[in-house]
C-alpha cells in the first residue's frame, strides 16, 4: 500500500502541517486531468459558495440526463442524451437533454431541476422531500416557470445509466456472438482461441462451480439464465469502473430488475416440497406459528438481499474512490499546498481501492449468479435426494 513508502508518509505529514495554517479557496487547486478535479474547480470558480463534497459525491453516483465531463467557467462540456417523457396530460415527448441547457431553460413545459430551481421551490414552500424532488429530475412547469405538481410525469429518458448499459450490452452481445460463431465455424473439436478462450473458461467455471453443485442434474435448463446474469452484471460492473462513466450496477433500479427476474425464476422453479416447507414446516406445532411467517418472508428476503448486496457493494466502491479523490479538494479548499501535498496519498489509496474494485466487479457478478443458483436449487430441493451437495445456508456477503 501507498503508506509503506516513506515519500507518501512525508507528504501526508507535510500537508497536515500546512493545513493548520490556511483557509484559501480551492480556485487555484491543481491541474489534474480527472474530471472531478475540474468540476470542483469550476464549482469554486463559479463562486457557488463553498465546496459541497456531498453533492458532488451524489452527482457521481446517481443517474443523470447527460454525460457531464467538465466545466470551463460557465461552459459545460457534456454529452446530451435523449429525454423521453410521458405524461397523461401532455402525452409523449422526446428531445435531447441539451434543450434544457443544464436546467437553465424550460422546454415544452418541462424543466430539469438544478440547484437554483430547487432553492426557488424551497423558497416557494414546496415540500421537496414529500414530492420526491431533487436536482436532475424533470418536472412539469406552467408558462410562468412555476411547478405543476398535478401533472404526473413518467420519465423514460435514455439517461446516462441507460445509454452506458446499452453500450456495454452491445459490446457483450458482440463479444459473445462472435465467439459463438467461432464455435460454429471451427466445430467443437478445435481448441478455443483469443476472446473465445477467455469466455470459455468463464463459462466452464460458471457451469462447474456454480450451476452443477447447486442445481444438480437440472443445471442445463438454468445455464442460459445464470450465464446471462453473470455476464450482464460483469460487463456493467467493468464499464462502471471506467473513469467518468455512470454507476450502472450501483443503481437500485438496475439491481431491482435483476432481483425481480431472479425472484420470478425462483418462483417458477419451486415444487410442492418447497411450499409445504414454508406453510407447514416439519417442526412442533407451537413453533409453526413463528416459523411460518419467517419462512414466508424468506421468499422475499432472498431476492431482496440480492438487490441490496450488489447495489451496496458497487455504490460503496464508487463512493470510496470519489471520496478519496475529493479529499484532495477538501484539503485544497483549506490551502492549495495541502491539496498538492495530499494528492499522492489520495492517489495511492485510490489506485489501491481501484484494484479492489476490479476484483469486486468479478466477485459481485459471481456472487449474484451463485446465490441465484443456490436459491433456485433450494426451490426444487427435496425433489430428489440424489447426493448433490446443496448449500443449505449460503454465506451472505
Amino acid at each position: 500500500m501507498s503508506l509503506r513508502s516513506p515519500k507518501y508518509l512525508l507528504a501526508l505529514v507535510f500537508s497536515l502541517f500546512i493545513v493548520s495554517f490556511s483557509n484559501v479557496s480551492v480556485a487555484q487547486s491543481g491541474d489534474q486531468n480527472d474530471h472531478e478535479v475540474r468540476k470542483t474547480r469550476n464549482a469554486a470558480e463559479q463562486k457557488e459558495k463553498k465546496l459541497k463534497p456531498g453533492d458532488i459525491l451524489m452527482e457521481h453516483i446517481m443517474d443523470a440526463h447527460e454525460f457531464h465531463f467538465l466545466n470551463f467557467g460557465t461552459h459545460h462540456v457534456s454529452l446530451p442524451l435523449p429525454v423521453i417523457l410521458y405524461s397523461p396530460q401532455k402525452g409523449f415527448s422526446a428531445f435531447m437533454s441539451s434543450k434544457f441547457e443544464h436546467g437553465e431553460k424550460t422546454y415544452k413545459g418541462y424543466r430539469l431541476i438544478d440547484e437554483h430551481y430547487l432553492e426557488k421551490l424551497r423558497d416557494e414552500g414546496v415540500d421537496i422531500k414529500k414530492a420526491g424532488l431533487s436536482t436532475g429530475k424533470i418536472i412539469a412547469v406552467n408558462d410562468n416557470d412555476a411547478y405543476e405538481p398535478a401533472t404526473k410525469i413518467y420519465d423514460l429518458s435514455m439517461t446516462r445509466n441507460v445509454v452506458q448499459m446499452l453500450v456495454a450490452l452491445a459490446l457483450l452481445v458482440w463479444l459473445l456472438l462472435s465467439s459463438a460463431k467461432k464455435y460454429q465455424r471451427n466445430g467443437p473439436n478445435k481448441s478455443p482461441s483469443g476472446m473465445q478462450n477467455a469466455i470459455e473458461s468463464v463459462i466452464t467455471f460458471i457451469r462447474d462451480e456454480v450451476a452443477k453443485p447447486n442445481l444438480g442434474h437440472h443445471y442445463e435448463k438454468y445455464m442460459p439464465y445464470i450465464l446471462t446474469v453473470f455476464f450482464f452484471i460483469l460487463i456493467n460492473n467493468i464499464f462502471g469502473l471506467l473513469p467518468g462513466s455512470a454507476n450502472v450496477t450501483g443503481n437500485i433500479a438496475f439491481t431491482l430488475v435483476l432481483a425481480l427476474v431472479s425472484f420470478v425464476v425462483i418462483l417458477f422453479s419451486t415444487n410442492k416440497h418447497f411450499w409445504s416447507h414454508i406453510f407447514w414446516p416439519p417442526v412442533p406445532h407451537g413453533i409453526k406459528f413463528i416459523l411460518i411467517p419467517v419462512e414466508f418472508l424468506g421468499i422475499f428476503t432472498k431476492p431482496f438481499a440480492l438487490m441490496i448486496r450488489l447495489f451496496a457493494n458497487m455504490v460503496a466502491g464508487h463512493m470510496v474512490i470519489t471520496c478519496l479523490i475529493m479529499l484532495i479538494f477538501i484539503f485544497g479548499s483549506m490551502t492549495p499546498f495541502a491539496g498538492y501535498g495530499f494528492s499522492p496519498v489520495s492517489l495511492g489509496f485510490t489506485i489501491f481501492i481501484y484494484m479492489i474494485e476490479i476484483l469486486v466487479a468479478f466477485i459481485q457478478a459471481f456472487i449474484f449468479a451463485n446465490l441465484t443458483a443456490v436459491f433456485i436449487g433450494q426451490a426444487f430441493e427435496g425433489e430428489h435426494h440424489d447426493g448433490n451437495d446443496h448449500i443449505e445456508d449460503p454465506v451472505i456477503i
Partner: protein
Amino acid sequence: MDLLNPGFGLLIWTLLAFLIVFFILKKFAWKPILSSLKQREEGIADAIASAEKIKIEMAQLKNENESLLAKAREERSAMLKEAKDASDKMIAEAKEKARLEYDKILADAQAAIHQQKNAAITEVKNEVGRLVIDVAEKVLRKELNNKNEQEKYIQELAGGVKLN
C-alpha cells in the same frame, strides 16, 4: 432517500435490455457454445474411454501372443523330444534286427558247417570202411599165400594206414 429510490425509466430500460439480451444470447450464444462444449467434452471422454479400451485390448492381445508363444515353444520341445524318441527307437530296432540277422546267419553257418562236417565224417567213415574192406580183401588174399609174407604185409599195411 434518492439513492434508494429506483428510477422508473432506468427500471423499464434495464428490464427490456435484460430480457432482450437474455433471449438473444440464449438463442445465438449460449446454445451453440454450451452444445459445442458438451460435444467436445463428450468427444474427449469417448476418446479417453476408447484409448483405455484399446489399451486393455492390446494387453490382452499381448497376453495371448505370449501364451501362444509359450505354447509353440512347448510344442516344439515336445516335437523334438518325440523325434528323438522315434529316432532312438528306430536305432534300437535296427540294432535288434541286425543282431537277430547276425544270429540267424551265424546259426545257419554253424548248421551248414555241422552238416558238412557230418557229411565229411560220413565220407571218411565210408572211405575208411572201403579201405578196411580193401585192406581186408588184400590181406585175406595174401594170407592165403604166405604166412610170413602175410604178416609182413599186414605190418606194411598197418604201417601204411594212416589215419587222416
